[in-house]
């Protein structure tokens, strides 16, 4: 299931970071010590749409508070995996468990589209994220706090339509964060943003993850984004996890460093070689 990168990598220092047993290396310095995150265990997960067998047996353990990136070719089932984790699709076979009793508010998803209500002001949109706590007395202050966390406190009274793409996505992030989730799943959340906005959003994502310590699962088609943000990169091929790569670079990470670039290159070459085989 989880083949090591080593087999096909030149003997650089990078190869030794390939991970055979993800469970074995749970505690690492850069991860928040007191994590609020939930661990996630997936066993034998399968999912088909009609005849299309999208996920053919996923086995995966994500320790609490880890930042995991999932990459793979378009249509390989990344979104499907994420939607299964978030409970938006029904599992065909196998199991997903969070090692704890979960409330709906514990798991949040962010999509490529901000999905804000155009007819609700920014603050009201953030309040939507409180779920069943919407009516509670501190709803207002919690929403305001979440909005400040993403740096948009001054936009609280605006309509979403006047915000830029990056700002809308930050409001969506505030809405996801306001209930203090323990697992946050991102489906290409920065896919529609321009390069500069992307980078500042990546920094924001990393910052809130470090501050709050949730378990982060980021689906992305951008391998450099994956290695820049994640503790661990999973490559999905043919419905399975084909590679499971640890990224040990210290945070804050230096974008375009030799170390990250090397890792990115090796993951990319895997994605491309899979392409050649088919």
């Amino acid at each position: 299931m989880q083949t090591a990168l080593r087999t096909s990598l030149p003997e650089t220092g990078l190869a030794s970071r390939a991970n055979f047993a993800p469970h074995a290396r749970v505690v690492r310095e850069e991860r928040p010590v007191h994590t609020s995150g939930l661990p996630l265990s997936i066993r034998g997960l399968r999912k088909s749409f009609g005849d299309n067998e999208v996920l053919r047996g996923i086995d995966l353990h994500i320790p609490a508070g880890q930042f995991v990136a999932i990459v793979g070719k378009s249509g390989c089932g990344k979104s499907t995996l994420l939607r299964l984790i978030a409970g938006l699709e029904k599992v065909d076979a196998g199991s997903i468990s969070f090692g704890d009793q979960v409330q709906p508010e514990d798991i949040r998803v962010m999509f490529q589209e901000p999905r804000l209500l155009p007819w609700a002001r920014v603050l009201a949109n953030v309040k939507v994220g409180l779920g069943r706590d919407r009516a509670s007395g501190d709803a207002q202050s919690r929403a305001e706090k979440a909005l400040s966390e993403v740096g948009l406190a001054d936009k609280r009274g605006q309509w979403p339509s006047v915000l830029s793409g990056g700002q809308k996505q930050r409001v969506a992030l505030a809405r996801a964060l306001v209930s203090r989730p323990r697992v946050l799943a991102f489906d290409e959340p920065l896919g529609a943003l321009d390069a500069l906005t992307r980078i500042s959003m990546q920094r924001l994502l990393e910052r809130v993850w470090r501050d709050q310590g949730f378990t982060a699962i980021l689906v992305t088609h951008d391998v450099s984004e994956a290695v820049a943000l994640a503790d661990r990169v999973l490559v999905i091929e043919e419905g399975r996890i084909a590679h499971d790569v640890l990224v040990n670079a210290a945070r804050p990470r230096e974008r375009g460093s030799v170390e990250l670039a090397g890792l990115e290159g090796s993951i990319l070459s895997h994605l491309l070689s899979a392409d050649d085989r088919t």
Partner: protein
Amino acid sequence: MSLIDSVSFPRSVRLPRVDGLIQWIVPLAIIAIWQLACVTGFVPTRVLPAPSDVVLAGWKLLLSGELVRNIWVSFWRASIGFLIGGSIGFAFGLANGLSQLSAKLTDTTLQMVRNVPHLALIPLVILWFGIDESAKLFLVALGVFFPIYLNTLHGIRTVDPQLIEMGRIYGMTDGELFRRVIFPGALPSIFVGIRFALGIMWLTLIVAETIAASSGLGYMAMQAREFMLIDVVVLSILIYALLGKLADSASRVLERLTLAWHPAFQKR
């Protein structure tokens, strides 16, 4: 202002103070030319009375109370017919937009009935109701029903499914989902239906009152025709136009208030 013209108008062209007045220049000019043509005898007053004569006729009818009474009757018929037809259309639009079962059950039937021009039913309606109030209300309600039904249905069906999924993810109940996502999402389309329906409402009422009534503006016009009171005929037509414009403006104000979030209605 409607969605379309507010979008296509560049900001810099708008001069807010003059803006309100500019639209009256053409109608006032037309009235001036019309008056001039009548006074000079270019247009015989048997064909078209001068605007001053129309105003005078209106003044006399106003004093006798006849004008207010007829306007009131027509206004009442229009409103009640609109409310009845609109509510039923809205209810069917909601039901068929929200429930597959309801749509399967009634949509095809309604789409078939829609192809019958409702004014073609006038002879039948007179046979059923005579020239009773219910005849007019029935026709107006029927005419108003379809635009409201179709646009409510369309509005609900085209609400962004991603927003609905978002609402569910964030734990909205069915009621909240409707109130906070589906209904506001359908509202722009519902307003299109209302505007259409208002036009149909007046048209239906004019025809119905002209053919089968003993009061109302259409009846007033027909009576005037019998007595060759051309100024009253023209007056009735103008009042219809004015009422139509008033209803349209009211719906625009409502639209502006409820769709303040829409980019087309935002402060400029």
